[in-house]
Structure formats: structure tokens, C-alpha cells
């Protein structure tokens, strides 16, 4: 059996369109010092560092090198350091990387950092379009928005979902973000406001799409022995994994459903011994870059049957007061520093388990789920956190 690992410290930065008030290393330093302070640890306590950032969205190459000294002085101290990138899943992939650093038995306390300055890029979607095959699919403007719009159109056709349903997802997330001081978009929104918004790619309106943000996030992972000494409120990793879907968008057997995510959920739930996710999970942080995805994710993750995600939403099951609150932080829809977004999902889930989510804390959280997608929805990462050591 693998070693037990817990998240023992979380550090978030305020996110905005462009954090002009700080340099890139200062932004990273902000997240790292917050995580160290949260865990009451010092730089010397960190055994290894796992770093993630999607360079092409930063407009520079290998920014982790520039930021290495902001990560507990890793460079000056010649510490073990690895950079992982997997698109939007980068934040999830670095958390997994940190997890395996500790489960391997080589390290006890590992710092996981993810950062992004999309504000330094002219247009993130132009960058993202370069991930699509140049001959067969790039010409049609392939990227995140196009895939999200296809998902929405297919879900409308298959299950009768409407623009109003999407607006309800936006309203819920925007309302939650108002309680999250680190969230990028902080404004009150009504369904009527949403339906008047500019159309981006039918049926997705501006309010259905996430922003692009500058921001960073850091978490500290520790082995069982160390975790108990570091904090009274560790968030134990109960199950985790990644799945890789087909490269060609046209080769994927979904749009209204998310088969790869269902397969991954099945694997991770088996590991975490979760039989009934709606009953067993107390809060979920899902990667809802587009409103429709929160609905499809609820279905693929087994919170309800396929096609019933909208019903779950309308009944308020996924609201702050519901049976399974989804995205109390406001989700990706309100904050999206691309390479860091996935780690923010995991950090927010950890805060909920630790009872440190302040104004957006869900009551009595024992088990939390974090989900991340990336690579034009080619990759998914899941992590299940628990108050109790499994």
C-alpha cells in the first residue's frame, strides 16, 4: 500500500486580469509564503518542489526558471525541482506530481506551485489554437471555446438544456465568488443580465465563459508522520488520478457526455471506496471553464444520471445550501490563471476539508472532490480529499 499523504498548507493569491502590482517572481512568492505560513513551516522544511505553468500563455519560455528562487529559494539551496505541464490540467498534474513525490518514500514535505500571467499574452485563444492539429482541425478555430460551445450545443440537442439553464450556473458561481476574496470576477449577476450578454460562440455568452487571469497557487503535501505534526487539520488524499483522451477532437466519442471523465471517476471512486458520490461527497470544486461543463461534469461524475445535470442545478442540489455544493469558490468560471487553475480547484477543496474557507465555507465537510480538465478537454485530473486518514 502506498504511503498516506495530506495537504497541510494552502496559499492563494488574488487573481485579476493583470497583476501589474507585482513581478512574476513576486506573484509566485506571494503564493508560496502564504502556503508556508498556513502550514507554519520554513523554507528549510521543504524537501522538493513541483512547479507548473503553461509557458505559452505567459509569453515567455520556462518562467519557472525565473521563479525558482521565489520557491523557498530552491535554486540557491540546490533542491530537487521538476516542472510539469499538461495544459489546463497543469495545476492538477503538479498536485499529482507532489503526491507521487511523497508516496515514493523519497520525500516527506513537498511544495507544489502553479502560476500563470495570462495578462502578458495578447490573446490566450490564439495560443491555445496552436495545440490543435495544423492540418485537420486548426483551421476551424479549435480551442477551448469551440469545444465548450460544441458540448453545449450537443447537450441542448440531446437533453433539452437551455440558455437559461446555463445562465443559472453563471449566477450561482458569480454569487459564490463574491464570498471569495481571491476570485477574479466579483460582481452580482442575474439570469436576465446573462441572457443579455454578448454571444461568444453559440450558445455560450460572455457570462458562460471564464476570464483569463494572472494568479498563483501553492500547496504543501506531507507524509503521514509529518502531516500530523504540522497541522491539526490535514486534508488527506483518498484517491487521485489522470486520464488521457484522444488527441483529435473529432475522434472523441462525446460532446454531450464526457466518457473519459466517467472512466476516470470510476477508477478514482474505486480507489477512494466511494459508492454513491452524491451521498459520500460533501463539496466539489469542478473545472467549469464554461457553464455547460458544470452540468456535464455533474453527470459524468455520477452526481446524477446523464442528462439530469440541469435538474440537479434547478433543484438547488449544487447550490451553497444544497446537498452537494459545487464550486463554493466561484469556480473556474470566475477565476482562470490557466496553469494554476487546476491547483486552485484542489486548494479550494482542501480549504473546505480543513475548515478554512471562511465566507465560502460549506458546513460539515468531511469529503471533497476536485476536478480539472485541460488540453482542449483531452485530459482530466481528479482528487478526493478527506478529513479522516482513509
Amino acid at each position, binding site marked *: *500500500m*502506498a*504511503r498516506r499523504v495530506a495537504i497541510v498548507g494552502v496559499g492563494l493569491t488574488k487573481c485579476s486580469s493583470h497583476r501589474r502590482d507585482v513581478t512574476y517572481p513576486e506573484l509566485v512568492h506571494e503564493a508560496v509564503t502564504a502556503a508556508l505560513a498556513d502550514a507554519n513551516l520554513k523554507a528549510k522544511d521543504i524537501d522538493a*518542489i513541483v512547479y507548473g505553468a*503553461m*509557458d*505559452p*500563455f505567459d509569453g*515567455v*519560455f*520556462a518562467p*519557472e*526558471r*525565473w*521563479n*525558482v*528562487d521565489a520557491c523557498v529559494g*530552491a*535554486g*540557491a539551496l*540546490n*533542491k*530537487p*525541482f*521538476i*516542472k*510539469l*505541464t*499538461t*495544459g489546463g490540467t497543469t495545476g492538477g*498534474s503538479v498536485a*499529482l*506530481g507532489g503526491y*507521487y*513525490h511523497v*508516496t*515514493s*518514500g*523519497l520525500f516527506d514535505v513537498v511544495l507544489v506551485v502553479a502560476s500563470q500571467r495570462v495578462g502578458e499574452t495578447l490573446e490566450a485563444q490564439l*495560443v*491555445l489554437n*496552436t*495545440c490543435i*492539429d495544423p492540418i485537420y482541425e486548426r483551421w476551424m478555430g479549435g480551442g477551448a471555446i469551440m469545444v465548450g460551445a460544441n458540448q453545449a450545443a450537443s447537450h441542448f440537442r440531446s437533453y433539452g438544456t437551455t440558455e437559461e439553464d446555463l445562465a443559472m450556473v453563471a449566477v450561482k458561481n458569480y454569487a459564490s465568488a463574491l464570498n471569495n476574496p481571491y476570485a477574479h470576477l466579483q460582481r452580482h449577476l442575474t439570469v436576465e443580465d446573462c441572457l443579455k450578454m454578448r454571444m461568444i460562440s453559440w450558445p455560450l455568452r460572455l457570462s458562460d465563459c471564464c476570464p483569463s487571469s494572472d494568479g498563483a497557487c501553492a500547496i504543501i503535501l506531507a507524509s503521514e508522520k509529518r502531516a500530523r505534526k504540522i497541522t491539526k487539520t490535514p486534508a488527506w488524499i483518498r484517491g487521485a*488520478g*489522470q*486520464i*488521457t*483522451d*484522444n*488527441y483529435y477532437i473529432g475522434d472523441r466519442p462525446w460532446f454531450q457526455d464526457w466518457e*473519459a471523465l466517467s*472512466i476516470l471517476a470510476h477508477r478514482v471512486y474505486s480507489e477512494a471506496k466511494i459508492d454513491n458520490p452524491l451521498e459520500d461527497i460533501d463539496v466539489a470544486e469542478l473545472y467549469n471553464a464554461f457553464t455547460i461543463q458544470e452540468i456535464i461534469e455533474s453527470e459524468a461524475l455520477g452526481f446524477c444520471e446523464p442528462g439530469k445535470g440541469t435538474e440537479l442545478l434547478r433543484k438547488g442540489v449544487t447550490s451553497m445550501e444544497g446537498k452537494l455544493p459545487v464550486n463554493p469558490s466561484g469556480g473556474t468560471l470566475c477565476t482562470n490563471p490557466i496553469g494554476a487553475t487546476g491547483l486552485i480547484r484542489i486548494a479550494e477543496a482542501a480549504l473546505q476539508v480543513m475548515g478554512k474557507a471562511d465566507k465560502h465555507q460549506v458546513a460539515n465537510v468531511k469529503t471533497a472532490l476536485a476536478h480539472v480538465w*485541460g*488540453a*482542449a478537454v*483531452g*485530459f482530466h485530473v481528479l482528487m478526493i480529499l478527506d478529513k479522516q486518514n482513509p
Partner: protein
Amino acid sequence: MPRRVAIVGIGQTKHEESKGHYVYYENDFEASKRALEDASLTRGDLDTVIASGWDAIDGRTISDMHTCMAIGGYLKDSSHAAEDGIMALVYGYLRIASGLFDIALVAGHGHREAAIDAVTRITLDPLFARPAQRNYLITMAMQANAYMHKYGVSEEQAAKVVVKNRANGVHNPYAHLDSPVTLEDVLGSAVVAYPLKALDCPPESVGGVALILASEDMVRRITDKPVWIRGIGWAIESYEFGGKDLAEIPSLVAAAQRAYQMAGIKRPLNELDLAEVHEATSFHELMDYEALGFAKAGQGAKLIDQGATEMGGKLPVNPSGGSLCTNLFSASGLVRAAEAALQLRGDAHGRQVADASLALAHGLSAPAGAAAPTNCVAILERG
């Protein structure tokens, strides 16, 4: 205690100047296919795949969307080290050591679709380093210069490294450059960035490399000739160029110390049978000797003068010809590990070191050159 992990499959393409119509991930595909064949495994046997390389060099964002599929990742747990391939080996090792995976494939590639000089320049500080036209190679030249002057090393001594490695490359059927050169050739080649001349610098090669790693339980079912990873260490260095003694490589010292400690090695020069080092330039191989503890500070050139690191010497270094013969810009370190593993299996044919049982593989992951390089050292043992 980490679980024991072994290399059970090795795959390389022929490395060359160009592969014509190949898209970069086809190099990963060919190498992975060969590694699977080598281990008599199929894609279905893999639990996880780890790709490597840099998006900025590959010319696309999320380059692992393609590489992970090309190396067998469909519906599997994949990841991607935005580093030299040696760090994919590190990550694959960690995943298996954890007990959560049994079989991993790690891969890397090199290609010539990007202008490495131009792309690596944008890793550097825009105010001071970029206007000085610094890039990967120029930072390496600055290191070589600092090393030369601190320890009184001559250009001729560095040139001897080139002569040695190019002579070794002749016997490596995968090597990109497979012709010998003389001391005069090296010293007479055009200056690229003082003190580096053209032949002091590695070529840019196109090719792929893949290794399959397995947990102890699985190893016995796969092969009679496993290569065990006895020790592994890696470390990064400070980005601040101005405050460093460029004549030293402290991240390599730290990486080696970790790997040696894990493998129980105290006197590397005596205990190791061979080493495959990722020499950024000819001068760096001498610096590597010192950082790896083969020689005392400033004494690396003595080893080359004595012939100690030649084939048949006390500790042959780079029997494959090293990076000076084959240099996949984002996987040269992983090629070093593949070559060291071939030696320990006794499968290195014309470049075989007799009776090799303990080897060192070194990889350098340095997108910003000597600013914040990562060095990795793995100690491999014949099973």
C-alpha cells in the same frame, strides 16, 4: 523505503540531422514502439506514460497532447515533464516507487523545427541578459570561460574530450555524428562563442528515446536482464546569473550526492564501471568529472590527460559518444540513461565496456542554459 524500480525496455531511433517528413512526436512513437518490442510488452501493459520536452521548442502549446498519445497514453494516466527527458525518467521512477503504478513508459525527442538560440533567449531576463544577446549556448560559453580561467584548463584539454567522444561515437549505430575528429580539427574549427569552437558544441539531432520502467514484482515476469535504478537525485540551481561562480555546477554536486547516498557509493571513480554524462560542451564534461566526484575541483582535465575516461580507461565516460555526437535538445539526458542501461545489459555491441555492472547516467535540463539548470544523476546496476 521506496519500492525497487528497474529499466526493462529500451528504445532509440537512429539519431540524425533530419528525419524528413517526421513530425516531432513520431520520434517518440518510433522509440516507444521499439522499447515495447524490446520488453516484449504491448501498449495495454502500460499503467502510465510520461512524455517530456518544451512546448516553446515543439512550436505548439500542450505538446504532450500529441506525444502522450504517440507513446501509448490513450485512456491511461499520463503526464509531461517540461524538462529534458531525464526528468521523465525521474517522474516515472517516482510513480512506480510509490506502489501506485507497476509499468511506466517514459520518452523524449529532439527535432529541428525550432531555432533553439532564439527560443532559449526568451528564458532570460529581458533587461540585462537579452540585450546582451545571451541564450543557452552563450551562457554555456560563459561557464566554460570561467572554468578555464579559474583552474587553468586549456582549450586543448577540452578538445581532447571531443576527440574521445567522437571516436566512441563511431561504434554507436544510433549516433548522429559517427566520424572521428582530430585535435587539430577541433582547435581549428570556427569560434562560436569564446572559448567554444564549433566542434566543442553538440550538434542538434533529430530522434527519439524511450525507456520502460517496472516495479520489482513485474520485473521478473518481463526480463532476465533488468537494470535496477539504485540511486537517483536531481537539483536545480539559482536563476541569478550574476551572483554565481560560473566555474562550478552546484546543482550537479547536490544531485550526485543524493544519488550516491541512495546507492551507497562512496568512491565513484573506483566503484563505477562507466558513466554516460550529458556534456553541454566539451568543457562541461571536465566540469562534470569534478562535480560528480571523479576528480577534485580543478583536476578534471587530468583525467582526460591520463586517458582515464577513454574506452579501456579506469572509468570510461560516454562510450556512446555522448552529447557531442548525439544531442536531442530536450532528451539528451534520457539518451544517456538509455545508453548506460544498454551497457549494463551487455547489449552495447561495438561500444560495450567489458563486464559493466554499475553505471552512472547524468542528464541536464537547462532551458535557460546556465541560469537555473537542473541536473539529474541516476545510478544503474546490472540485475
